[in-house]
């Protein structure tokens, strides 16, 4: 090392230079190998990943099908509006973001509450609306400041709207955000793909029952997106197909007339076209505004609806069960005639009570109705006559006969969750009770059945179906709400054919007799419905009913001394016109007192409108109603 040889030094330098050159080449070769690996061998994989990055399938929500009444009146439709949406998973500080947003667009405390509720219910990674129905001005203000709000965006969405407001709320139902149970339903129908991008689902009523027809086919847009997920251009588009439109058997105007006829009373009304089973009006009062649910109901309104003692969310027409009271009598009369247990000519002398096994069953009228035949028994609603009749028929025969009219069975109406009701019989008692003492059927119990009391409990739609069947001379149709379904793409309307469920084998003379007696109810001078139908201008066959409200444990009902919520339910069934019935209906007015005074007038208003086009003089005032006048039947 001491002695430096320039010659050697230079040689070594050249060696090292060559070494460096070789090293550089090797390094480049290594890089080249890497690029070859990525670009040739792994090319397909990275090609796919690049496409996954930049191409995304964006679902396009189809227009939900419309719901129209029988005359084409729109009952449910859609409109497009801008919403301000937040994807919570992309926002670091939610409260701060909402505070900042509230300086740009109007965000009310109720919006925050609703957003919170949505967040609790939502799937992760969803974007949720903080404000719906933005004005153009608000949209512009936000868009200009969008860069400040990652995870917040304005979206155009379709909103469901129910233009009739509270009217027909129970039968239309409502839609709400998809929940886990809805997802399970979608999965069971194998519709997951079609529901990509759908955020609402029918929750009740027709919206629920016909969800998969109303929904339509989701369209897709293949878009190129940039790294922030914003769409840059559209590559291809499969347009959505709007859902099927439903045309109902419902007459929206009739529905409204019926609803208004209730005033502020609670109850239900079901009107059916006897010749098809098509439901003309399906009323449950009080009702609610389904529009509240569309953009997510806030907690306050939700609690108000659910905690109200009036239970507006309960569909009384399908889920309320009521003793039929005297509206049960025409069927018992028919049963007795069929079985030969009674003839129209037979009479009894009514002392005002029926005594059986040491127990006195009272008639409504103290002192009784005197000499009573079957016609009169129905017209004046003579309890004594039917106590005896029931006793003579026996529970087995009664149950077997009225079952044919649909009592105690689901009607199969096209809304989910219908109640079954209770058709009492010895078998039913055996099934229903555990205590052997209670499982026994007592002959005295049959006697109460004769006037539609006791364990009897039916839904208003069952009562309506039964009277419609009677009106239709024993030919029973399944009650239904949808008249036809229209494919919006082809325009083809598929009618829902009336389904004759069964023809009850009855003698026409017996039917005519009972119908005639019911006409007497509404027209004879002592008929219980005559007051309500005075000067009607058409003949109708009705039957009033008053159902005692008492518990099965046997607490005694004492007329006049009871509070509002223990007062009798008023009922009325009717068909009209009597010779060629076009409409048959059942009304229940909860705690309305006598059916003749509470329920029959409502039926009158409905029939007047349906048959004569006559509107009630002045629609019930919307002002806070006078509680005492409502139940003024007493």
């Amino acid at each position: 090392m001491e002695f430096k040889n320039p010659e050697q030094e230079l040689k070594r330098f050249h060696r090292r230079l060559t070494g460096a050159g070789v090293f550089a080449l090797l390094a480049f070769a290594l890089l080249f190998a890497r690029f070859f690996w990525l670009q040739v061998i792994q090319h397909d994989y990275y090609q796919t990943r690049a496409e996954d990055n930049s191409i995304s399938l964006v679902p396009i929500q189809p227009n939900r099908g419309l719901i129209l009444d029988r005359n084409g009146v729109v009952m449910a439709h859609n409109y497009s509006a801008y919403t301000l949406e937040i994807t919570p998973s992309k926002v670091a500080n939610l409260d701060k973001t909402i505070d900042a947003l509230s300086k740009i667009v109007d965000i009310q405390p109720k919006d925050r509450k609703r957003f919170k509720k949505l967040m609790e219910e939502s799937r992760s990674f969803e974007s949720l609306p903080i404000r719906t129905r933005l004005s153009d001005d608000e949209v512009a203000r936000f868009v200009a400041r969008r860069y400040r709000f990652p995870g917040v965006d304005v979206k155009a969405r379709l909103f469901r709207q129910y233009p009739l407001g509270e009217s027909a709320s129970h039968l239309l139902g409502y839609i709400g955000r998809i929940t886990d149970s809805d997802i399970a339903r979608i999965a069971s129908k194998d519709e997951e793909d079609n529901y990509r991008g759908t955020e609402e689902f029918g929750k009740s009523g027709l919206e629920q029952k016909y969800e998969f027809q109303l929904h339509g086919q989701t369209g897709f847009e293949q878009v190129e997106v940039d790294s922030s997920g914003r769409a840059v251009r559209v590559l291809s588009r499969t347009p959505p197909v709007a859902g099927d439109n439903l045309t109902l058997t419902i007459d929206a105007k009739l529905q409204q007339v019926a609803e208004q006829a209730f005033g502020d009373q609670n109850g239900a009304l079901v009107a059916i076209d006897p010749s098809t089973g098509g439901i003309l009006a399906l009323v449950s009062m009080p009702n609610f505004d389904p529009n509240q649910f569309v953009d997510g109901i806030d907690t306050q309104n939700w609690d108000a609806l659910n905690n109200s003692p009036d239970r507006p969310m309960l569909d009384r027409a399908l889920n309320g069960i009521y003793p039929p009271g005297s509206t049960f009598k025409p069927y018992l009369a028919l049963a007795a005639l069929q079985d030969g247990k009674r003839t129209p000519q037979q009479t009894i002398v009514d002392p005002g009570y029926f005594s059986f096994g040491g127990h006195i069953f009272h008639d409504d009228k103290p002192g009784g109705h005197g000499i009573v035949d079957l016609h009169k028994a129905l017209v004046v609603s003579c309890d004594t006559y039917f106590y005896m009749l029931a006793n003579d028929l026996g529970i087995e025969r009664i149950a077997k006969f009225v079952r044919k009219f649909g009592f105690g069975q689901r009607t199969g109406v096209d809304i989910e969750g219908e109640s079954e009701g209770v058709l009492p019989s010895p078998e039913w008692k055996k099934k229903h009770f555990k205590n052997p003492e209670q499982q026994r059927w007592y002959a005295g119990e049959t006697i109460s059945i004769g006037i539609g009391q006791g364990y009897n409990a039916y839904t208003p739609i069952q009562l309506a179906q039964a009277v419609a069947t009677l009106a239709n001379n024993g030919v029973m149709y399944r009650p239904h709400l949808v008249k036809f379904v229209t494919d919006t793409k082809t325009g083809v309307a598929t009618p829902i054919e009336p389904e004759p469920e069964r023809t009850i084998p009855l003698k026409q003379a017996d039917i005519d007799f009972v119908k005639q007696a019911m006409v007497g109810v509404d027209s004879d001078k002592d008929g219980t419905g005559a007051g309500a139908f005075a000067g009607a201008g058409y003949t109708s066959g009705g039957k009033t009913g008053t159902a005692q409200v008492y518990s099965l444990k046997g607490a005694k009902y004492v007329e006049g001394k009871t509070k509002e919520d223990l007062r009798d339910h008023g009922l009325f069934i009717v068909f009209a016109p009597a010779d060629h019935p076009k409409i048959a209906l059942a009304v229940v007015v909860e705690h309305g007192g006598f059916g003749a005074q509470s329920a029959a007038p409502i039926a009158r208003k409905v029939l007047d409108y349906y048959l004569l086009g006559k509107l009630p003089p002045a629609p019930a005032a919307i002002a806070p109603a006078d509680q005492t006048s409502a139940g003024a039947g007493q």
Partner: protein
Amino acid sequence: MIRNLWQRLIAPLDPPLMIVAALLLVYGLVVVASASPERVGAQLLNMLVALVVMRLVAQVPPQKLMHYALPVFAGGILLLVAVALFGDVSKGARRWLNLGFMRIQPSEIMKIAMPMMLAWYFQKYETALRLREYLVAALILLLPVVLIAKQPDLGTAILVLAAGCYVIFFAGLSWKVIITLCTAAVAAAPVAWSMMRDYQKSRILTLLNPQSDPLGKGFHIIQSTIAIGSGGIFGKGWGQGTQAQLEFIPERHTDFIFAVLSEELGLIGISLLMLLYALLVGRGLMIAAKAPTLFTRLLAGSITLIFFTYAFVNMGMVSGILPVVGLPLPFISYGGTALVTLFVGIGILMSIHKHRMLVQK
């Protein structure tokens, strides 16, 4: 007359080097035009400045360069200290010095000043190169490297360190020492690890497993790898890269421009680029081989290998085999500072080549 002027203008230039460098510039402009069309004008201006600087440097004879070595290096050190004391902070690093009328990045100067200084030092002690001289050289090397690494600017520190090591290597440090040092370096890695900043550690961790944090630190590497891989042999076509044009590639006109090039021009485009780099390095090594003095040999060799290192580190990091250290792709990436430095190096190479005979006389 004009021809005469032109002759004088190009006289100091080395045609092969000039042609390769010019091709690289054109190539770079094409890629920048796709990655960031609005910057083409500015980049043209950067190129013009760089070429003027190159021409000026090319006419400076190596002896003069030797004279400048110590003052430039000392000045560079002072500026680095000034940066550490008064530098502007941007993106968490203190790299810039505000001179009032312009901002400069003194670490950039070191890329050239370091090999010049060491080459000058070895030239000075040419006749008696012992271990002591190498130790001093190591100190000269480590001082600026540490200052730069502390800024922190890992990419530049690595380049400056590499530049110095190349000089020491070409000066003839025995293999025994080199191997010993390398072994020691490997052994010291854990110590170095403990001294690294968190972001530097995370870059290395990300390199080892980019998928561990696909939306965070690994995002850059994953996206650039996808860009390269999806480019295939022929590329997606200029301006057609979805990764590039849809902004999936970060820093696509600067440090990650190679991903844009790979995606749009494919393996063919990469091969062309690597060929140009290889020609550049080859020509540089040839110039070094013919260089007349130790100073010029060491300087030319080191500068040439810096070109290679620059390219290798950038391509390596973008394709996911080296950590992301923040170095541009030489001659291609948008940006004036790096370009000027590169052309100072080219100018020096040209000067060394043109003056090889003069010195010997």
